[in-house]
């Protein structure tokens, strides 16, 4: 049963545009994450938030900015997208920062033309 919801499922845009992706979890978790899965299917952590506070930023370009209004929401904004930003962006949550199990959303596939 889906409990981490991401929108949109797909987004196609031009180089230089701004995009925003939304993520909401209904599990009551404290910690949320953004991961990027590239064309070779390799998943890499981008950000981690615990209770609305940024706790991990894995050397992500400054055009990426996460936004958290409350602990159930973690959005991702990309200013001025570039071709290498084409990927699947996966949102996840866990009960806490050391909780064992991550729950992933179904992902947002971004294509930059």
């Amino acid at each position: 049963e889906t409990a981490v919801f991401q929108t949109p499922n797909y987004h196609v845009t031009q180089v230089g545009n701004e995009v925003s992706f939304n993520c909401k979890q209904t599990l009551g978790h404290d910690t949320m994450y953004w991961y990027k899965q590239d064309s070779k299917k390799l998943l890499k952590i981008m950000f981690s938030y615990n209770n609305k506070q940024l706790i991990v930023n894995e050397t992500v370009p400054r055009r990426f900015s996460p936004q958290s209004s409350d602990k159930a929401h973690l959005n991702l904004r990309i200013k001025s997208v570039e071709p290498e930003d084409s990927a699947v962006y996966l949102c996840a949550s866990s009960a806490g920062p050391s909780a064992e199990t991550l729950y992933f959303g179904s992902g947002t596939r971004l294509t930059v033309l």
Partner: protein
Amino acid sequence: GQQVQQSPASLVLQEGENAELQCNFSSTATQLQWFYQSPGGSLVSLLSNPSGTKHTGRLTSTTVTKERRSSLHISSSQTTDSGTYLCAIDPMSNYNVLYFGSGTKLTVEP
């Protein structure tokens, strides 16, 4: 360099055969998880096993922490097991930041 390496990269089995997937990692892992990614892309946590042996259903994971390796055994494979199996570690003991391997793509033929 890549912290997590998985082998084989791909595996084709006949239904009913067993699968053995390997994960080797280059740093101490305070957490180790196995995930399943369906052909459609959804990602599900299968097992958390930082050390020892764990079973769930037809899955058995054995992690030897000192040797920095883990395996996932799938018994009596089914066509619905087809997909990509990902191993991930958290080397830092906090913040649940997982580093993923590139996965083993399993295809189970009827």
